[in-house]
């Protein structure tokens, strides 16, 4: 099982931020997202054999753990203003960029859960539609539909 641990560490190094973004898109809270990631990897360490697609398995596990975190804490989503985006303290950041980030976060939060998660997973976590379909156990058409519909809603909300 040393191989499993090594592979999991490699996946963390390559996709850790994306997994965190996925978890954050569910929990809306960085602390809970980190707890979810920790729990997902602990579950992974207990595996007796290496899954065929470890990357997909870990993304699914992180998402499930994030949902569990919400259930266990009996918390309703209380998304921060920046949502999944970095809270920039850079004074040099243009007001226009700051404004765009805030509007994007607001627009994402107005979407349905499926649309929001799909956009985050595809656009920010770099998962393909097929990978998201496997992860969510839905058809690829449904995923593509959620994504397109979500983007259109965001454009309307942001008046782009």
């Amino acid at each position, binding site marked *: 099982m040393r191989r499993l641990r090594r592979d999991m560490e490699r996946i963390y190094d390559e996709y850790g931020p994306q997994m965190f*973004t996925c978890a954050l898109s569910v929990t809306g809270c960085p602390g809970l997202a980190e707890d979810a990631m920790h729990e997902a990897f602990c579950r992974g360490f207990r595996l007796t054999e290496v899954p065929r697609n470890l990357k997909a398995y870990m993304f699914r596990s992180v998402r499930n753990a994030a949902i569990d975190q919400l259930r266990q804490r009996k918390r309703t989503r209380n998304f921060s203003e920046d949502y999944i985006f970095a809270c920039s303290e850079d004074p040099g950041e243009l007001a226009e960029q700051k404004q765009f980030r805030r509007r994007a976060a607001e627009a994402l939060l107005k979407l349905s859960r499926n649309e929001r998660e799909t956009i985050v997973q595809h*656009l920010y976590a770099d998962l393909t539609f097929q990978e998201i379909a496997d992860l969510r156990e839905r058809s690829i058409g449904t995923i593509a539909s959620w994504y397109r519909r979500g983007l259109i809603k965001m454009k309307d909300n942001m008046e782009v």
Partner: protein
Amino acid sequence: MDDFEAQLKSVPLARPSDEMKKRIFGTGAGRSKFIEALRVRIPVGWAALFALFAGLAGMYLSQWLKGPVAAPSKVVYVQIIKARSDRNPFDFTEPAADFMPGELTGRTETPKEI
């Protein structure tokens, strides 16, 4: 990917804390490598052979460091030359009336230190 998607993607994302990896994988990279090294499985036969050689090496090393365990005592060899006698000359169970004929020579020899 259209311009809107590209613009959305350009927004920097929140990242997990620097402690996250240590929290998941337990320790820093250096120590985890040490633990990995400890987890290497060795066949029992090789382990037994290694333990045997280690024991022998330890034994010889301790002797080499401490020197001989006990100083050898001098050994006296007695050799009877031309002693024609019916009785055993070393039989002292009864007093002998006469001295043994022939020549009696003695030599001492100290064995070399082990």
